[in-house]
């Protein structure tokens, strides 16, 4: 309830905020870094494909201020992100949520890397016998001769 009130208050204050305080001033370097990190990773809901930091649109401006106000309020990054998702959906997250519905998104590349690693290691063990057969040397020599004669011909 209290949280809802704060959100409401923040919303009501938005127009004032954007007029009087467009340029952000922070109490600490940490807050400054947090602000820039957050607006980098949040997507502008109305733009083609831009984050809040880069977009010139009005809504991006508003949401930047929103992030600013919430940081000033002492909210955590998680709370700010939560707030944005509640309003605009997971679409605004450039860092997709680490959730069950996204398990394929996060899991697939990891699984793929592991599979490639496994195959590479197991083939590495199997490779030497096949590779050092005598016949092979013969073929190789012929091949090299061929290449040399081709080069000479050109």
């Amino acid at each position: 309830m209290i949280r809802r009130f704060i959100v409401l208050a923040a919303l009501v204050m938005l127009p004032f905020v954007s007029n009087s305080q467009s340029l952000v001033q922070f109490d600490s370097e940490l807050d400054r870094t947090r602000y820039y990190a957050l607006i980098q990773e949040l997507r502008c809901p109305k733009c083609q494909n831009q984050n809040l930091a880069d977009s010139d649109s009005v809504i991006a401006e508003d949401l930047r201020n929103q992030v600013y106000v919430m940081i000033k309020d002492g909210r955590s990054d998680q709370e700010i992100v939560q707030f944005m998702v509640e309003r605009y959906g997971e679409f605004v997250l450039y860092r997709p949520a680490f959730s069950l519905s996204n398990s394929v998104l996060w899991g697939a590349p990891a699984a793929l890397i592991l599979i490639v690693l496994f195959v590479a290691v197991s083939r590495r063990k199997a490779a030497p016998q096949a590779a050092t057969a005598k016949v092979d040397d013969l073929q190789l020599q012929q091949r090299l001769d061929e290449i040399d004669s081709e080069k000479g011909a050109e």
Partner: protein
Amino acid sequence: MIAELGFFALCLSLAASIGTIVTGTLAVTTRQQYLTALVFPLSRMMFVGALASYVVLSYCFYANDFSVEYVANHSNSLLPWYYRLTAVWGSHEGSLLLWVMIQTAWIFVVSVFSKTLPLESRVRLLTVLAAVAAGFLAFTIFASNPFERSFPFVPQNGADLNPLLQDFGMIVHPPLLYMGYVGLSVAYSLAVVALIEGRVDSQWARWTRNWTMIAWSFLTAGIALGSWWAYYELGWGGWWFWDPVENASFMPWLVATALIHSLIVSEKRGAFQQWTILLSLTAFSLSLLGTFLVRSGVITSVHAFASDPERGLFILQFLGMCIGGSLALFAWRAPQLRSLTGYTPLSREALLLVNNLILILAMVIVLFGTLYPLIHDALGMGKVSVGPPYFNLFFVPLMLILGLFMVAGPLANWKQTKSDRMRALVMMPYAVGAVAGVVIAVLYTPWVGVAAGIFVALIAVLFVDTKRKLANRGLSLQSLSRLGVGYWAMHLAHIAFGLCLTAVAITVEYSYETAVRLAPGETKSVQEYSVKLDTVGDLAGSNWVSKQGHVLMSKGDSLVADLYPEKRNYTTRGQIMTEAAIDWGFTRDLYVALGEQFDDGSWSLRVQIKPGVRLIWIAGALMSIAGLMSIYARRRRK
């Protein structure tokens, strides 16, 4: 009348491509000499038609012929002539025409410079290339005709070109990129020919390598240039955002990079045959996929696909034919292609295989991340975004691992390297890299340390490799030049990769950004600089008016940069553009963008200090130059 001639020329080009396909196919089946002789002029005629058509469209733009709808939608009589000419590729239809023109130009070049190939292979190659071109020509003619007229209501003036595209970058970036994409179609066609003939020999590999290398050099330059262009033009200083459009160009690059490496193995060792063929097919298929994803609007908006069923369906069919057809051919014929030689785990082949696996892994992850939002939405699971944090998480470690293997790669011998010999060779570069990396990590940040360590190690490899190669010749200018341009090109490209890693790390870790509010005449400090907004004045161009600030940045008492950022209003479209002012340097860029004006007359200024950012594109340019050097070396060797 003239626009109709352009359309006619395009149809002529399509007719010539169909003619090439028919005569080419008949020529190889019936072996009639007159048919074979016909293939060459027909394939060249494709280019003549496409070029004429392209020239006509350019003329329509130049002459402000607004009765042509495409011109009316993307140009304006106030637009300077050079942007009118480049506005040709400012949107879907025209850029497709540019594609077709470049595609047929490549075919022309191939038809002229393919004399070292057996005649039958030449005919087959031109036939396959003509088939690819025919697909594009048909798509342009039937679904994306840029010559359509808007009779009887001809607009007085055009709607103007998107201001973002009114820039030098627009003049060079798309042609370079298309040269790369289309160049990969030659590798694709060569692979199809190899599958049909069931033969991959070292001459085929050498040939494919030359053409792929040219395409790769253009693609590299195109991507680097695109990144640089976005950086200065969009007004927020970003140089890579893992945007679907960026990824569309990057995926073919990753595969092409893998391909130029696997082709070395195929050429020199007669190994990796199937793999090389598969990469050749994939590289171009991905450029097709990427271009169409972007062009059809599937990526930016899922609904554009359905809203233009004609275009969408055509795209799907063509993609299906190119990708599906070639993969089916691959499945059918590839088992005939056998590697002639084997290799051990500690050999140059094995290390090049590692290179290939890492690059392909990276490509698959980028592809997956790019398509995931589409799949997610199509399954009714709602809209999600996949952005830089996701891609970086997987991509950065993969590239660092790649860098580590690149240290060993050039030092390994073909087939087998004795492990104690290998150890002795790689010891120095790894040790030097590790020491440099640790020192830099302590002085700066861990990521910069890792990247710089790899960079230093790659430079050390150059020394070790050169010393090894000169072991029985002695060090002299003559013996150094004997190593060949290709040798230096390879090391240059590798070192440039290390430089790129380092530059990215520095930029990411040390960029500083802030917004300050300044009244004219006021000074504020940003990091070690003091920023003064001197004046804000008015400025006008032929199709825009702007507010131009004069910003002075100084360090201590000395003036560092004199900058003129602008807020431009392109009057025809009423579009506001931020024209950032940049003071560039090898070590850092100072990036200033003019924001909004406040009621009291003061302005907001966005100030960024970006160390190392310039080195990213310099590294890209070096890679591209290295590619061209290696082509030069290979041509001269013949």
